[in-house]
């Protein structure tokens, strides 16, 4: 019986250490990756997997089922919420042009629409459109067109 406990303990420790290491790499990624979008990758994938592994380790180690149910809930909500928050943050970051374009191989969102030519009113001050005079005229024209359509 004690041997079984020891084996369970060892397995739990392996899971806990592996999970903590993955959470550590999530932190490292936040430091090492160049911009918001890449950092959100680091903030979601290794972190979610790390939390899941820690939950498994804790479930093995903890006594009683009531703690296990709670850990199951934590894992489920982690997997449901982490992608959503990452999506919201990266969407805002992209629209406000906090993107390292020099690190992008292709950007199909940019070529298909025209987010960079027209003022949309929520750009950061340090990200002007490429041709500001033309963009201002164009966004005014677009505004008039929308008013006319209404």
């Amino acid at each position, binding site marked *: 019986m004690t041997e079984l406990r020891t084996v369970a303990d060892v397995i739990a420790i392996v899971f806990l250490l592996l999970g903590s290491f993955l959470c550590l790499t999530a932190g490292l990624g936040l430091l090492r990756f160049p911009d918001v979008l890449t950092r959100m990758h680091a903030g979601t994938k290794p972190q979610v997997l790390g939390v899941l592994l820690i939950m498994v380790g804790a479930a093995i180690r903890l006594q009683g089922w009531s703690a296990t149910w709670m850990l199951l809930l934590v894992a489920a909500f982690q997997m449901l919420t982490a992608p959503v928050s990452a999506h919201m943050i990266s969407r805002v970051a992209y629209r406000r042009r906090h993107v390292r374009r020099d*690190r992008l*191989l*292709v950007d199909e969102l940019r070529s298909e629409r025209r987010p960079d030519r027209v003022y949309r009113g929520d750009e950061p001050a340090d990200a002007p459109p490429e041709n500001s005079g033309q963009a201002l005229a164009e966004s005014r024209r677009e505004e008039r067109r929308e008013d006319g359509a209404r």
Partner: protein
Amino acid sequence: MTGDPAPAATYRLRHQLPLLVWLVLVWNLLWGTWSWANLLGGIVVALAVTLLLPLPPVVGGARVRPVALVRFLSYFVVDLVSSGALVAWQTVRPSGIDRSAIVTVQLRTDSDLLLTILAESLTLVPGSMVIDLDRERRTLGLHILHVSNEDDVERQRASVLAQEERVVRAFGSPDEIAALGLAPGEEPARAGRRTP
């Protein structure tokens, strides 16, 4: 939406039932122990939540195909583990990451629920993270963490479409599964089934 003119209350209850069951389950898991008091308390809380904070019903509803669901889930678990390990390795290795890419993928699915499941699961699989979703044109904007050339981009696009197919086969209606066979961007034959 459905042909029979069921009373609004019955219709709502039928569509809210999965939500109610889920809320009762969460309540019981939070208490951690099974008892009739917890079950009744959970039902009271779930009814209160759904009546006081009503949500619009999920349009179309979901059908679950067990075999396809198991297939989807097993791919998902493998993807989750491998993407966690891959990104962890990319953060610690000395060379770091190479170029990134932002791609748009033309999807074939036209259902709010399926698109939500797809977008949620895509963020946790290797390489990709959803930035934008154009609901009307059914295109998905994805950020891909690590690409070295155009072939990588195309491979990612193919894997997104494969993931879409698994999601639709697990949760979609026969119509939606049939729509998988259409060429990307082609309009399905059924008209007038727009979600608001």
